[in-house]
C-alpha cells in the first residue's frame, strides 16, 4: 500500500445492482488483478440476486453440511479469508487499496479492519444501537484464534462489530502484488437459511426503543417487511436508506486512514480506463 496516514488520494464509489455470486466475486477479483498504482481507492457496495453462500478462500465446501439448510444455496468461493457467509438479508462491500509500489507486506492490515468497523460502531451508536467491537465487550462470545465454526457470523475476532452477543459486521482481506482487497458483510436481519444468526434489526436487546431517528424507525419496518418476504415499494425505500447509511459509513471509515476525494463511478469504466466514470484524468 505504502500510503501514509493523512495522504490525499482519489476514491471511487461504485454502488452496484444485485448480481449473481459468480459475477460479484469475478468483479472483485478483476479489481484486485487489474489494479495499478494510478488507480483510485475503490469502494464497491453490492447485493446478491438470490441468497448465496460465499465461502472463505481456504474453506472446504463439504463442510457446509455442518450447518442445516446451507446445501440448498448456490455457492461461490471468495478470494479473501475467513468463514462462510450467507448473503441474504445483508449488504456487502469490497474496498480495494492499490499498491503504490512493489509492496510486499504479509498478513492482515489491522488499521483497515479497525477503521471501517469503528466507523460502524460510531454511526450505529448515533442511531441508538449499543454497537461495539468484540474486543471491548466481556459479554461477547469468546474471541477465537483458531476458527472452529464454518460460518463467519458464528465466529468472533477482536474487531468484529457486535450488538449484545450478535455479530453484525465481519470483514476479511486478500493481499496481492497489486493491492489489498477487503470484503465485509453487514447483517441486517436473520436469514431463513441461518435462523440462529440474527442481524442488526432483530438482535435481542439490540435496537433502542427510544431512538427517534428516521432511519431507526424505518429499520423496524424493514425487518418486518423482510420477515414477510415482501418486495414492496416501501421495503425498497427503506433498503435505499440502509444503502445510503452503508456507503456513508464505509466512506467515513476509510477516510480515517487517508484523506480521500470520493467520486461516484462504474465498474466498466474503471476496468477499461483504470479511472472510473468520473475520476479525474490526471491523478497518479
Amino acid at each position: 500500500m505504502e500510503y501514509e496516514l493523512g495522504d490525499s488520494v482519489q476514491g471511487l464509489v461504485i454502488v452496484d445492482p444485485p448480481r449473481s455470486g459468480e459475477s460479484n466475486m469475478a468483479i472483485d477479483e478483476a479489481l484486485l488483478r487489474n489494479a495499478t498504482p494510478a488507480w483510485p481507492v475503490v469502494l464497491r457496495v453490492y447485493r446478491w440476486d438470490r441468497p448465496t453462500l460465499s465461502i472463505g478462500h481456504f474453506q472446504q465446501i463439504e463442510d457446509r453440511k455442518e450447518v442445516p439448510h446451507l446445501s440448498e444455496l448456490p455457492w461461490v468461493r471468495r478470494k479473501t479469508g475467513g468463514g462462510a457467509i450467507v448473503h441474504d438479508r445483508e449488504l456487502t462491500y469490497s474496498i480495494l487499496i492499490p499498491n503504490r509500489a512493489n509492496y510486499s507486506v504479509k498478513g492482515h492490515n489491522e488499521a483497515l479492519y479497525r477503521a471501517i468497523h469503528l466507523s460502524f460502531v460510531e454511526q450505529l451508536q448515533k442511531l441508538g444501537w449499543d454497537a461495539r467491537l468484540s474486543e471491548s465487550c466481556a459479554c461477547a462470545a469468546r474471541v477465537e484464534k483458531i476458527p472452529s465454526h464454518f460460518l463467519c457470523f458464528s465466529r468472533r475476532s477482536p474487531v468484529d462489530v457486535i450488538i449484545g452477543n450478535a455479530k453484525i459486521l465481519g470483514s476479511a482481506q486478500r493481499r496481492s502484488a497489486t493491492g489489498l482487497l477487503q470484503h465485509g458483510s453487514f447483517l441486517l436481519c436473520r436469514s431463513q437459511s441461518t435462523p440462529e444468526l440474527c442481524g442488526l434489526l432483530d438482535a435481542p436487546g439490540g435496537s433502542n426503543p427510544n431512538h427517534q431517528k428516521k432511519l431507526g424507525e424505518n429499520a423496524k419496518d424493514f425487518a418486518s417487511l423482510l420477515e414477510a418476504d415482501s418486495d414492496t415499494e416501501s421495503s425498497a425505500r427503506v433498503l435505499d436508506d440502509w444503502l445510503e447509511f452503508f456507503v456513508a459509513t464505509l466512506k467515513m471509515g476509510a477516510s480515517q486512514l487517508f484523506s480521500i476525494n470520493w467520486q461516484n463511478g462504474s465498474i466498466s469504466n474503471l476496468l477499461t480506463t483504470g479511472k472510473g466514470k468520473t475520476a479525474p484524468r490526471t491523478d497518479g
Partner: protein
Amino acid sequence: MSITPEQLRYCDSHEWAYVADKSAGIATIGISAFAVEELTDLVFMALPKIGQTVTAGSEFGEVESVKAVSPMYSPVSGTVVEVHSELVDKLESLSVDPYNEGWIIKVKMSDPAELDRLLDWDAYKKQCNH
C-alpha cells in the same frame, strides 16, 4: 546442523533461500521470522506440488492469518523437488523455528545467478527496521 538467518538470502517480500550445496543447485525456501511475526496467527497454508515450476518473484503458495490471505513469492526460478507437506498441520513450528523446522519447499534452480539478486542478512534486516 541448524541454519541461522545470517546464512540466508532474502526477498523484499520476506521469503528466504538457502543453498546447502551449490553443486546440487537446490534451494530450500521459507519465510522469515519477521514475516511470521507480521502474519501473527497462521491458520492455513497452500503449497505447490512436486514437479511444479516456480519463477523468481512469482507466487508459489498462500497463507491465511487473521482472515487475510497473503501470497508467498519464490526467491528463485526452477522446479519444486520437495514440499514440506506436514507443515500445513503444524504451522506453529514456523513461529518456533522458521529457518529449520519451518522450511516450506525445495527448488532445483534453473538460474542460480538469481541468488545474487537477493538481499543478504544485513540488507534484509535494514529493510525490516526501516
